């Protein structure tokens, strides 16, 4: 089999994926007060994975991400719903969120909010859904 001549694509991808993933995490964390959040962060993350799929073949990427994206979606939504349920335990409405400021080493005074947990669920659901869509249309049957 002829080896594909894609050395530039591979070289760029190897660097770009790291940058995109970092940016995805930045977007995710920025979302609490600034533009960003679980949805966009998740989409950026899925974009990085799609780039990997385009550059390398699906099988070798799947070997490194050995989970079912449908399950990932379900787990993401479950995390989001259960974070919402957390408020009920403290006799607050569904989806109630709490936050406070903590003095952490290295970071200093930091705001920690339960809404971030909800956003983790959103991000996982978005990554899962986006990847299921892309994998489905890439299969030919």
């Amino acid at each position: 089999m002829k080896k594909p001549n894609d050395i530039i694509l591979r070289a760029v991808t190897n660097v770009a994926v790291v940058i995109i993933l970092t940016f995805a995490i930045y977007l995710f964390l920025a979302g609490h007060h600034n533009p960003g959040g679980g949805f966009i962060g998740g989409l950026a993350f899925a974009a990085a994975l799609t780039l990997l799929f385009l550059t390398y073949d699906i099988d070798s990427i799947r070997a490194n991400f050995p989970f079912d994206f449908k399950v990932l979606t379900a787990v993401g939504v479950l995390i989001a719903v259960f974070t919402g349920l957390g408020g009920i335990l403290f006799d607050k409405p569904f989806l109630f969120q709490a936050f406070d400021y903590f003095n952490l080493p290295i970071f200093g005074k930091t705001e920690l909010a339960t809404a971030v947990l909800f956003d983790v669920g959103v991000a996982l659901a978005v990554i899962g859904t986006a990847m299921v869509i892309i994998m489905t249309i890439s299969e030919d049957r």
Partner: protein
Amino acid sequence: MNNLVIMPIIVPLIIGLVMVIFRQKILFHKILSVFTLIATGVISGFLIYQVKYNGIQTLQLGGWEAPFGVSMVADMFSGLLLLTTSIVGLLCLVFAFGSIGEDRERHYFYPLFLFLITGVNGSFLTGDVFNLFVCFEVMLISSYALITLGGEKKQLRESIKYVLINLLASFLFLAAVAYLYSVTGTINMAHLAERVGEVGQSGIITAVAMMFLFVFSLKAGLFLFFWLPGSYSAPPTAVAAIFAALLTKVGIYAIFRFFTLIFYHQPEVTHLIIGIMAAITMLLGAIGAIAFNDIKKILTYNVIVGVGFILAGLATYTHEGLTGSIYYLIHDMVIKAVIFLIGGVIIALVGTSKLNDISGLIKTHPYLGWMFFIVALSIAGIPPLSGFIGKVYITEGTFAVGYYWLGAIGLITSLMVLFSVMKIFMNSFWGETILSEDMEKSSTKGVMFPIVTLVLLTIGLGLGAEGLYDYVNIAVESLMNPSSYIEAVLLGYSD
């Protein structure tokens, strides 16, 4: 604040998601889905109890007070519909156990079913127009998957039409929400009702109301039902039954909510148009039901007649009319489910839906035949079955406001409906038995329990109409006096 209000939405959602994770455990899916629907039924029963004794129950999601956050509202009307949804959903699910086939089960049938229930329950409970759009979408996307699941040629052909028409409707829905927001500056239903009440229903608000009516009519099959007969005859019996019982009813619910809570200031325009549309729907549906010689076609056209009849009650905008509508809505959910199930069983037995090829089933299946007979009488509104009380009240309502034409059309179409279902009964159950038991394509084993239960339910609803009256009356009271809804949502929050 009452967190119970959100439970009918998130319980099926959570269980559905857990099923997606454990995809291969079909038995586990079956057991869990039964428990889920029992749980939502018990929760909605408890909500009805709370509404009866403590008034309308609300929940402001995340503690963001109305009108800024998303409100969830359970009043008696939504409570009754929730309970009926759970019961009918449970019985259609039990029917699916024996009939849906392993292939569909492995491709997420039960999770999709629960997501459909999530969307339906969400639409009944939400107090926010945009959230209503979202819940509609949850329901519709599950229904897209359910209608195509199995991938038969006929299913794919019909689902393209179904998806396209619903995408168009959803787009218009969103546009209508945007118009409404730009005119009134809010999308919380209670707040909308208050603002429209303060400034009066001007021409532009009536125009927006007409746009909502168009959208919901498309979904409910009121007048704009051209997509319905094809789509509802394509999927397998259990799915068709749940579609016939629930999906159009959500559209009907939305029309009721909007035109009793928000746009009720010009009934001489809006409600008259609803009445005219209802009359045309009943006539065309009944003509369709008589014209065809195919079980599936007759039954789907009967769904359309039912939609027209329920909305005729709303068109009168009287206490009697709405009482009748709620009785008839509950009756219609039960009766459409059971008649689709029986029709599906007949088709499965004989292997065809053409009436001319079916004959003499009464000999081999007497119970099925007589149950079909009871259902046929109930659908036409013969006392003491459940259709009767609703028809009486709706007709009384139309006469009370002088819409004699509407009441007359309702009664005439009732006769036409009776004729159409009797045609099925006489053709398929009477006559010479041409099909011996061992020649049948399938058996009635395992599918009789849900049918018997639903038939008993229609008898019970008819005989127990008196006991139900208290609850229906509370529902009508709160529909006719929107101020109780508004107060519960806008001032009910205390922390």
